[in-house]
């Protein structure tokens, strides 16, 4: 099975409904090319996590088509052993909830799980496991069971467990949620370094600072579960009307002595200070 690397992903009229007909995505069209760093932004429930699961071949469209590396990403295609192995080697997803991602008894079992399932030789598995532990500075956690890790450590181990597969495309669901500012900064630095190697990044977030720091392109999902905007971060991040319309910022009230006034909380203001 050959995979064309022209487009990483191509979505044509992609729709997904959860059981009971609850819409998660509606007639979504986009392509993602090699080396792009794509941020999926949108309000809660707009379909970001669902889209990531579709891109990872964990859910399948109820309507429309999704191609990965030029091949249809369907339930049938993923039953083909050679295709599924090659696809999983190329694409990795870091789940939003680390407790979902960390199912193995120890951190070491976790980082070696992916490469072992994908038929990589044992020596290579050990070498990769050690490398990612060093890369993320978590060698000391190697024998620790996941339930004894802090929130930040769990996030790092989740990332390590996917990086050990050495995917070309890294999908991340809300990567900075639950991290303290220091850990967030570390993660951003790491992702930037990782992206410098010509790899693809597709991440969902509500953190507009993260979008500005990392993304080369933004897909905005609206309340109707479709893509309402697609472009460079600077095209949207400084447009308060658009951000308000898409529920990405909130116009909130401030009290200055006797005066109460309202303005959107926009990170542009911080840059001006």
């Amino acid at each position, binding site marked *: 099975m050959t995979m064309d690397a022209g487009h990483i992903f191509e979505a044509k009229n992609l729709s997904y409904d959860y059981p009971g007909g609850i819409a998660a995505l509606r007639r979504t069209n986009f392509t993602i090319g090699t080396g792009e760093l794509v941020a999926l932004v949108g309000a809660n429930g707009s379909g970001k996590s669902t889209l990531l699961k579709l891109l*990872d071949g964990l859910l399948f469209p109820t309507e429309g088509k999704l191609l990965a590396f030029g091949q249809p990403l369907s339930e049938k295609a993923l039953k083909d052993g050679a295709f599924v192995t090659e696809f999983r080697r190329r694409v990795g997803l870091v789940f939003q909830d680390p407790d*979902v991602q960390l199912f193995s008894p120890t951190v070491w079992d976790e980082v070696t799980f992916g490469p072992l*399932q994908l038929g990589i030789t*044992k020596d290579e598995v050990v070498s990769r496991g050690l490398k990612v532990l060093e890369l993320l500075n978590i060698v000391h956690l190697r*024998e620790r069971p996941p339930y004894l890790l802090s929130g930040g450590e769990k996030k790092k181990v989740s990332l390590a467990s*996917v990086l050990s597969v050495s995917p070309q495309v890294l999908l991340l669901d809300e990567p900075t949620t639950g991290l303290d500012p220091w850990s967030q900064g570390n993660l951003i630095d790491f992702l930037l370094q990782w992206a410098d190697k010509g790899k693809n990044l597709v991440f969902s977030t509500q953190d507009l600072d993260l979008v500005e720091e990392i993304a080369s392109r933004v897909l905005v999902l609206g309340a109707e579960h479709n893509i309402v905007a697609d472009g460079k971060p600077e095209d949207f991040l400084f447009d308060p009307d658009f951000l308000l319309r898409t529920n990405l910022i909130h116009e909130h009230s401030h009290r200055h002595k006797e005066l109460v006034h309202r303005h959107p909380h926009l990170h542009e203001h911080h840059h001006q200070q």
Partner: protein
Amino acid sequence: MKGEGFLTKNISNFTHTLESVILTEDLCHAPGLLQSLDSRVKVVTFVLFIVTVGLARSLAILGTIFVLILIFSFLSKVSLRFFLKRVLLFIPIFTAVIALPALFITPGEPLIAVAGKLIITEQGARTAVLLFLRVVDSLSFGMLLILTTPWTSILVALRWFRIPSLLVDILGMTYRYIFLLLHTANSMFLARRSRTIGTLSSGENRRWLAIALATTMAKSQHLSEEVYLAMLSRGYQGEVRVLNDLRLKRRDFLWVAFALLAAFILLWGNSL
């Protein structure tokens, strides 16, 4: 408020106790006798010891085995108090089921009458003590294995013994997620407590308990679905492949020889 925190307290205590009993990772890595042995060897020899306990017919043999257990425990840096506390925690559960009835139902010479009509016979007392010691010895072996072996190594050993992969994986995941679900249940009880003023009727309490159980079950089902997707995402295709880098050392062979000899001598004691 009387009884207000009964459920919360019990679930919280249960979680805490379970965690403290099981989470003894530091001890698993202490430089002791049992910690230095291969997990497969430990599982096999401990099963052998437990079988020996089951076959032993005299109090002296069972007493000797318990002394041996205490020596193993000492040589494995497990403090006596810590060890006995954990063993004693489970003993009432097992003895109540097994040993107590034997006191009254075994025919023989009457020893003492309890509450007028219930008679404890000499043979009954002996059988009860025998059963009690068997429970203590067997539990002690099990506890010593858990205290000195990381759970992951036990799972590796089980896989090595060709226990079906599905069963071992389910065991591993149960262990992994039981705490998470217990904490979830705990949080639900705390959240409810923080919103409760006054005393609820027992009917309302039961209704709430049923809802809490159903919610926890729904959450665990959602969690299992998500975990399955996370496994698929990293290449799981029906059977988990694991790194198996176990190697037997000289001391493992010596331990096996010692265990066989000890079991033989102890069982030979039955015929004396």
